């Protein structure tokens, strides 16, 4: 076994900014791209990079995540050695409450990290859809001799807190700051994905925890910048950071662009997800579909334009769906017209409705609701 990296993933994050989409679930299990959950991209990237020991730290609403991951077989992670370990929310005897920040969260899984034979740890959020080759990034990490390599990407700041990175020509991080004010200016934004030497991580977390620190970024990384030991690794290709409703809608719609899809799915490394054995999608004689991404198991008899249909969606005759995202099992009944909608799983839009959200503010319908 010559694996080099173990991964610790955080299933929760930014739930409050995702509004109704995360009422029933973690950010990690947010459906994305027609047949995936956000964590699928993370897990597939790890597996495709040869990382097969993965711990997932949960906080709340994690039953949808457990149901999705099961034993990890769909990602080839049902292994004797390594595989997936899901850590249910862990209440420390010392604090008697569920962890508040990443430092406490990492502290609760420190035994898992220490016991892993690998020398490097990937610490990552699960709200990024991208094709990432961790093995190549590790090579850079080792080459620079950094304590931490932060993955980053050029993006705009939105309503969620994002960490902005300033680096020099050698990719050495010279400044880190957190910003929460939306802007149209493209900046180097942290993906909250790090590669860290295991020993370093363990000692940082132990020390920070004993001093009562909570925020991994602010209380550890921001301070470490001065030690000139943090490097940045910029992802050039497509990377979607999903941390509020606007980015969710915008990044989903970007998948209708063929070049984006090629970057995300076209590489030799595949994106795996839970297998559901759906039948292929059936297009009826009166269907009209343009510029849409459609998963298996749908039955389409109406009109669909600029939209994303998840598995098992039914679009009845005369129904018109435009600029919308219909999650698994959704039904749009006869002669209903919807646009700029995000309907969660198993939502039914009854007959003869005419409903519209706006591009900048798509309307969300909560799971299982009937409109």
């Amino acid at each position, binding site marked *: 076994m010559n694996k080099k990296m173990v991964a610790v993933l955080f299933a929760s994050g930014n739930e409050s900014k995702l509004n109704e989409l995360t009422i029933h679930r973690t950010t990690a299990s947010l459906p994305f791209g*027609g047949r995936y959950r956000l964590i699928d991209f993370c897990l597939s990237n790890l597996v495709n990079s040869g990382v097969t020991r993965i711990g997932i730290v949960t906080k709340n609403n994690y039953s949808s995540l457990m149901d999705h991951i099961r034993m990890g077989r*769909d990602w080839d992670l049902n292994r004797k050695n390594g595989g997936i370990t899901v850590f249910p929310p862990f209440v420390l005897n010392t604090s008697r409450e569920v962890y508040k920040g990443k430092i406490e969260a990492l502290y609760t899984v420190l035994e898992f990290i220490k016991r892993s034979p690998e020398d490097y740890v990937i610490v990552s959020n699960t709200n990024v859809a991208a094709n990432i080759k961790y093995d190549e990034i590790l090579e850079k990490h080792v080459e620079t001799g950094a304590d931490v390599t932060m993955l980053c990407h050029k993006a705009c700041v939105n309503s969620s807190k994002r960490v902005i990175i300033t680096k020099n020509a050698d990719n050495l991080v010279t400044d880190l700051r957190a910003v929460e004010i939306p802007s149209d200016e493209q900046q180097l934004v942290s993906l909250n994905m790090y590669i860290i030497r295991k020993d370093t991580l363990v000692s940082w977390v132990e020390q920070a925890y004993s001093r009562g620190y909570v925020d991994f970024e602010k209380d550890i990384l921001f301070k470490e910048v001065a030690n000139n030991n943090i490097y940045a690794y910029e992802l050039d290709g497509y990377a979607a950071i999903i941390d509020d409703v606007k980015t969710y809608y915008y990044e989903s719609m970007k998948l209708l662009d063929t070049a984006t899809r090629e970057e995300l799915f076209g590489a030799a490394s595949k994106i*795996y997800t839970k297998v559901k054995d759906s039948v292929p999608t*059936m*297009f*009826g004689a009166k269907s009209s579909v343009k510029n*849409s991404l*459609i998963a298996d198991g749908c039955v389409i008899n109406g009109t669909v334009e600029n939209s994303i249909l998840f598995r098992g969606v039914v679009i009845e005759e005369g129904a018109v769906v435009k600029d919308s995202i219909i999650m698994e099992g959704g039904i749009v009944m006869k002669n209903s017209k919807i646009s700029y909608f995000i309907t969660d799983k198993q939502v039914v839009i009854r007959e003869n409705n005419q409903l519209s959200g706006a591009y900048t503010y798509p309307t969300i319908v909560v799971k299982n609701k009937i409109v």
Partner: protein
Amino acid sequence: MLASKQCVAMLLAGGQGTRLGVLTQRVAKPAVPFGGKYRIIDFTLSNTINSDIDTIGVLTQYQPFELNQYIGNGQPWDLDRLEGGAFVLPPYQKAKSGEWYKGTANAIYQNIDFIDRYNAEYVLILSGDHIYKMDYSKMLAHHIEKNADCTIAVLDVPIEEASRFGIMNADKDGAIFEFEEKPKNPKSTKASMGIYIFTWAKLKKYLIMDEEDKNSHNDFGKNIIPSMLNDGQRMFTYDFSGYWKDVGTISSLWEANMDVLNADSGLNLSDSRWKIYARNMAEPPHFIGSNATISNAIISEGCEIDGEIVNSVIFQGAHVEKGAVIRDSIVMPGTIVRSGAEIRHAIIGWNAEIKESAKIGEYQESAIKGEWQIAVVAPDAVMPAGSIVKAGEMVEGGNK
């Protein structure tokens, strides 16, 4: 000592399927793609597990690699079990002899040890080239209730078609008194579906006897069933009603795929109580472009469609460019259809490329005697721009 299994299934998947021509040049017939995302064998494997039979031997011989790889450890069909599960059983070298499977009966004969290993009371014999959904557990209950030695599943076929099948002549009670292979003047319309349940002790005896007979073809239909009938063994029919099709010819393979499109055909794949499982290819959802028009079609994951698709089945990962037209056709996985190409009443094998403005196949109003003139392009073939393939013609593949 392994746990006993009441019933073990044996799936005959070794046939070459010569009538499928270029489609089975490099893969066995059961591995041929079907219905947008399946292989033919998925139907029998799914029926088996849905019938609560969890031990199945798949007898392979001809071009087995694709099939072996596809079945793997049986996991996609929930057949990866601690005891039992799916086993690929190729012919193997034994202490005294080693030989190819000479016939269907010989294939089972060579695997007597496998069946004995599970202490099976009954053996279910299946073929890997039929499209149907059937609960074998009901047939097994029928077999046990009749205290039968052999039960043969039969389908009522139109009398004018009966001479194409093996016909079972039985009394009111279903007791078979006569078996006629492709009779000129059929006396009944009960056609054998090639699905048998035997009481294993009895079958084993007949397999050993058959092996000793040097003149035997070692075939169930030609030898085992007739000799059991001769000896007056208890043989019964089991009536099956519902969709069933032997997809052994290009015409019937095409028809069965078209039946998936037709809600009235009786072939319903989306019944959640009887799912058909398949190995997953981890493809993204399919994309329909701005220039596409699609009507009455099945499209699977990973496709990129920007052309016109009518009455057709498009398999995983196929690309259809703007201006291409596909009607009444089957396009298998990974095939690319370039702009301006026209495909009508055709089957395009997997990973082929149909270049610009090529014309494959011709429109047909109806088939003469059920034999459609389907144009076939082999897997991996590249059809040059502007090339023409006539109705019923078969084009050889590349050497990829």
